């Protein structure tokens, strides 16, 4: 099953490489990974999406917890949560397709953030499925370039991941 694990860790040089090293060292799989400092500059928050059996996921969370710089973590998929990924996508937008693309962007509630006579650059946020669906709807022939942030997530309701 796919899991989204959110990790709070010391914002120190080397901490990220320990996390990444752990995944390759122990043969765990990483689908997406993102990391940035939090409002508390001594902490950074990392979100990793991974797949594995319950036993593997249990090992992943235990091994992550064991890293000295990891302060706290939560498997967001254990409860209700919101997951978002942001994509910037550069699309061929010339001739008669220009309008069609604009309409599709609107339907997906994306924003065109840069325009040239033949190219739209679109910003789109949502869960992974939505981003995939958008690319499908546009059709791969029109896609020039994509960049995705990887998933970040947060629990619904009162639950917070903080120290």
């Amino acid at each position: 099953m796919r899991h989204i694990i959110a990790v709070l860790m010391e914002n120190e040089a080397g901490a990220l490489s320990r996390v990444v090293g752990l995944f390759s060292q122990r043969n765990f799989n990483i689908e997406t990974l993102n990391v940035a400092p939090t409002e508390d500059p001594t902490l950074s928050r990392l979100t990793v999406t991974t797949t594995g059996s319950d036993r593997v996921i249990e090992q992943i969370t235990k091994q992550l917890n064991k890293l000295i710089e990891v302060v706290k973590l939560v498997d967001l998929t254990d409860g209700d949560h919101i997951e978002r990924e942001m994509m910037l996508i550069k699309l061929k937008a010339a001739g008669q397709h220009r309008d069609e693309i604009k309409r599709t962007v609107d339907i997906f509630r994306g924003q065109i953030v840069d325009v040239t006579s033949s190219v739209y650059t679109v910003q789109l946020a949502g869960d992974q499925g939505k981003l995939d669906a958008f690319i499908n709807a546009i059709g791969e022939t029109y896609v020039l370039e994509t960049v995705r942030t990887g998933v970040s997530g947060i629990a619904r309701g009162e639950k917070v991941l903080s120290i």
Partner: protein
Amino acid sequence: MEMLSGAEMVIRSLQDEGVEYIYGYPGGSVLHIYDALFQQDKVKHVLVRHEQAATHMADAYARASGKPGVVLVTSGPGATNAVTGIATAYMDSIPMVVISGQVMSHLIGEDAFQETDILGVSRPVVKHNFAIKNPKDIAETIKKAFYVASSGRPGPVVVDIPKDMTTPTDKFEYSYPEQIEMRSYNPATRGHSGQIKKAVDMLVAAKRPVILLGGGTVGGRACDEAAALARELNTPVSTTLMGLGGFPASDRQWLGMPGMHGSYEANMALHHADLILSLGARFDDRVTNSTEKFCPTARVIHVDIDPSSISKTIAADVPIVGPTKSVVTEMLGLLGKNKARPDADALASWWNQIDQWRERHGGHYETNDNGLLKPQQVIEAVHKVTNGEAYVCSDVGQHQMFAAQYYKFDKPNRWINSGGLGTMGFGFPAAMGVKLHYPDAEVVCVTGEGSFQMNLQEFSTCSQYGLPVKIICINNGSLGMVRQWQDMNYESRHSQSYMQSLPDFEKLAEAYGHEAITVTHESELMPALEKAFAMKDKLVFLDIHVDAAEHVYPMQVPKASMRDMWLNKTERT
């Protein structure tokens, strides 16, 4: 406040930590530190002949004493030479602090002379590592390193110090913290009471229980408590390779070692058990054989300080995260209040069954009638001359398994071997590390002619510091363990497992000023051992020629269950 240079701070921190000995080797990036070391005499330094030996000395000291061992090496090759020893300590959860020099900060990343990213290289084999970015952080970082290395599940910690952090003329305020708190690191100090209660109820209800005692009990200094528990409940005890000595081998409740070369009775008992209480053992592949076929009727109570060890390979029915010592103490407390005990009849028939298994094999081996020694005989003779009291530091191979099987350890922390990594070359430096700290104790290195040659340069260190260890070289003229596998799985094609051009070990030892005795016949063995152990102040190398055709048995059949074993060359369970 006192003003010290970074180099002085390193040494002062070690003093304030109460470190008596460090093991190391100087080089460019640690010269400031070595100069600070020179100007004091509280911290003593042992100059090894290869950095790997420094790490094994520190490691073995830690295993024997429970205190972290300390290593000092230079950047680049000094640090990479230490990696095998760091990995060895990591696999066996041994507390160790390794201080490595690094090139000047402004050169890092430029492929400077003797620059190696040792933080990157060591990352998978350390509990943690630190880089010093500011000389002011040295004392606190070293304190943290000791704290992390020795608390929770112990392990090696590397502190990487760029040379410019130790400049003698740059002075900073020094104070050594008394305590350290880290918000991101809080190892468990006791187990969950509810789980412990559940475990005790299961122990009392069990009909065929076995206690599996591992390195976490020996390292966690919880052997007395574990033994008290076993005796209170009359439970059979099997000690893993890392747990040997954790329960007296002379006790009738001891079954021997489990696993690949475990005793017949231990493997049979585990296979048929209805309950396994694991105290600081981690169910590694050399113990479990096939995990799918592992102990089909047993429920498992798993006590470990490291949650990630629990249910990693074998699912635990009752996981208990905590130090073995406090968990077992709590169990004993509950048994004190709760007078319920296991069903006496059930236990009696369990013991009866175990005694029958004991009779079936019982460590039996054949001797030669032409005087050619069997390795098992050598170990038994060493046990005899040392009254079973020696620290036995082993290398890796058949001789290691024979030592584990036939030197019946009654006390913990006396059996010192590289269990997890299986590092050939470990035994000799390990023996040196123990002898340095326990000069009055008998310290034996059991080795093979293959393993010994991986760190034989340390003969020189032994002369310099007067370390009269006794080296029992079980010489079968081959990489015996490799050869055994080739015999069993490759139709005896001995690919590269025969040792040609062995040195004249007598002359070699003598060249360094040591004594040596060669033994080629059974009749020479006891006299040679007695003579060697009578030379209290001499390192004695015993080159003992043994039967190269001997195999280690029992040996589990690969990919099978615990009870599937070869008992000798022709007989299978």
